[in-house]
């Protein structure tokens, strides 16, 4: 274990959605390289409280990389410099003494800033509510082994089901698109036999709900590069394929003149 010294933090402060916001500069004299990035913010906040100042607001919870609550653009990169790592799992050994670190919230039109580094990601919930599920009312399920699911199918579904809904994909996207998030959920459910009955309805509803809030995808791929779970851009292709198919399959379309 060693210690980093003299870190300069340029942190985004914004008192509320209506405030214009600005950067504030703070110094942290020393921190262990075993500390996580959020523990650096904890130390900063303790310092601010001791100076009778308001602590920096940021979303965080599990601090083990799975709940998806933490966010942060660190030096302009979603979740910071380490690949496949959430901010809470980023450790100070990725930085060195005398570094200046710029800390900002997710910046996306669909994620308005609430305060300081905290944003509103509830459009993700609206997308799931529109169709990101398999209708299976409690109590009526057949035996778990009734339908065999080929292992590669199950594994591929799991690969995209790993999405933690953190929003890094949106923050990294120059268009503020949510195709990786929506595509991951569609790929998870549409690949499984249990997901087939609602496949095209689901895809149509989710894509159209997504378009109400988010920008359009132009296949940049920044989303996948920023994704802490390394979800592949392939899910976007699958989503687009199923969305196109849904327009042929959907009764709404068929009944149109």
């Amino acid at each position, binding site marked *: 274990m060693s210690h980093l010294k003299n870190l300069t933090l340029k942190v985004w402060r914004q008192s509320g959605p209506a405030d214009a916001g600005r950067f504030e500069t703070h110094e942290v004299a020393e921190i262990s390289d075993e*500390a996580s990035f959020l523990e650096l913010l904890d130390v900063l906040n303790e310092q601010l409280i001791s100076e009778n100042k*308001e602590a920096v607001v940021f979303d965080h919870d599990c601090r083990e990389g799975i709940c998806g609550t933490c966010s942060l653009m660190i030096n302009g990169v979603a979740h910071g410099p380490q690949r496949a790592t959430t901010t809470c799992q980023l*450790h100070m050994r990725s930085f060195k003494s005398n570094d200046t670190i710029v800390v900002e919230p997710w910046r996306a039109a669909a994620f308005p800033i609430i305060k300081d580094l905290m944003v509103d990601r509830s459009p993700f919930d609206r997308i799931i509510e529109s169709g990101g599920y398999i209708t299976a009312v409690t109590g009526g399920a057949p035996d778990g082994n009734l339908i065999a699911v080929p292992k590669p199918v199950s594994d591929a579904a799991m690969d995209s089901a790993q999405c933690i809904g953190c929003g890094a994909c949106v923050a990294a996207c120059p268009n503020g698109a949510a195709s990786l998030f929506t595509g991951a959920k569609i790929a998870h459910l549409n690949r499984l036999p249990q997901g087939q009955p609602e496949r095209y309805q689901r895809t149509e509803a989710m894509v159209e709900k997504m378009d109400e809030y988010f920008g359009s995808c132009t296949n940049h791929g920044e989303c996948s590069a920023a994704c802490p779970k390394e979800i592949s851009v392939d899910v976007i292709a699958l989503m687009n394929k199923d969305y196109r198919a849904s327009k042929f399959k959907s009764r709404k379309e068929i009944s149109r003149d």
Partner: protein
Amino acid sequence: MTYTFDAKIPAGALTDKWDNYKQNAKLVNPNNKRKFKIIVVGTGLAGASAAATLAELGYQVDAFTFHDSPRRAHSIAAQGGINAAKNYQGDGDSVNRLFTDTIKGGDFRSREANVHRLAQVSVDIIDQMVAQGVPFAREYGGLLDNRSFGGAQVSRTFYARGQTGQQLLIGAYQQMARQVGLGGVRLFNRTELIDTVVVDGRCAGIVVRDLLTGEIQSHAAHAVVLATGGYGNVFFLSTNAMNCNVTAAWRAHRRGAMFANPCYTQIHPTCIPQADETQSKLTLMSESLRNDGRVWVPKSPTDNRPADQIPEAERDYYLERLYPSYGNLAPRDISSRAAKRLVDKGQGIGPLKNGVNLDFAAAIERLGLDVVKERYGNLFEMYERIAGEDPYKTPMRIYPATHYTMGGLWVDYELMTNIPGLYAAGEANFSDHGANRLGASALMQGLADGYFVLPSTISSGLAPLLGKTMPGIDHPAFKEAEQLAKDRFSGYLNTKGKRSPDWFHRELGKIIWDKCGMERTKEGLQQALADLPALYNEFQTDLRVTGTGETTNQTLEKAGRVDDFFQLGMAMCQDALTREESCGAHFRSEYQTPEGEAQRDDEKFCHVAAFEWTGDPMNPKRNVEELVFETAHLATRSYK
């Protein structure tokens, strides 16, 4: 006056009780269900599954979470798996065996009827989750795969890589999201419960605080379900998420709900040891790793060689040595204490000598790198990110940490607290795990409560209310609770002392961990009970909360939670002091066998201790529910 508990255990043989209950339960007709409002607080496995199912049945459901999204709840972090008595492996499993393992694992301090029901509904959970699209691990033939877990000799654990909790929670969240979309559930996010309201002895609703605006609001309902998780964060350092807290349960307790067995807190044997002084939480490494990992320390305390240079003969595989039949899969409490003893003796490893080795070299040799990668790949990566070492090459360093709390709100067979209309589900209640929970049983219990138990039991409490007028939010009891809540938060802001809530939390955690952690003594607990009121007094006079109460203020949120942790901590220590025996995770040094195992005292302590709020956190009233074992044989737990 002694309180008499009615656990409402149904009549009949143990195996028939749940069927008998359902047959005789009062129902609410489908057209009338929509006339009832049910509040569900918490959206983890228990809360989300309850909200979804109750809405499907036709009740009006209001769901509350302090997170930005219901999908964040800490159930998401469970790694290893979920137990179910499916016997898909044909290795001798059955509902009865799961029941027996759970009762024995809990060291005979849980209620037989509840545990048996849990084992019964476990099989339905798997079916339900598969139907929802949870991508459980599968064999090449396409059928579901299982693995084994501590405290069991069969393979009954279903898993989704090392992210089982995540996949199950997302399943339950999606099912609830569907109901939000359909209008069956109204969702209140970033909203924290501050108080429960009781009118004429019945729960009438809740008071909440909007975490974005600080606004205090009331919500009335016919029934309130608290699915608000456990209180492990009282230790400050635990594997719980940062926001896990006891406030909802504790505020209900202050309104009259009994708090049962607060001293039953589980220490998980396989967590990454603390690395430095600013550490904010500990990270668990799934217990499933013990399926293939071997736990050892160097035989000599002065042996500082790297692990791969220590020859076999100079290693102590202590779990295999002490517990040959269960070996590395000995239950959590037993494995944890064994690790603590060796570290205390100076045989610990790592820079701070505060861990033991969990070694995969033998597994890699036996199974090949690919199989180990397939089974544990993401856990290994996670370990490497945190500890900065590659577990494929160097053994993991692990040490026990607080992980789960078996104690919680006292509930009867219907999961109702002693306050009519107030229910508790999942980790928030005390009912199924006794003094120690077996691995992969928390997910099982959360989903059992939410999907299958509450939806069948809640109608009995609602049916008699049909046509009756319930107190609305203009009732004086709501107004009084709102005022109390406002005063409470302005009190924290106006204390204007010098110490932050986190500072107090850390100091509180040190006392609880030292004196009421893995091993407890009479002297230590008495010392804690002397130190806690002093520190609490300091908290009340020297707290500093900056900012205001009218906007997002995480320091203020934290102050409220730490306040409740203080009061809970006092109850924990009192419970641990009064329970003069060792059972499961509650280990009193004075009560152990010559081999150092927990020694129960069934004569005096075969009961649930349920604490009643008296207004003074240092003097709660201790009530007792006797535990009667009709089927399970009260035996000394042995894993040798």
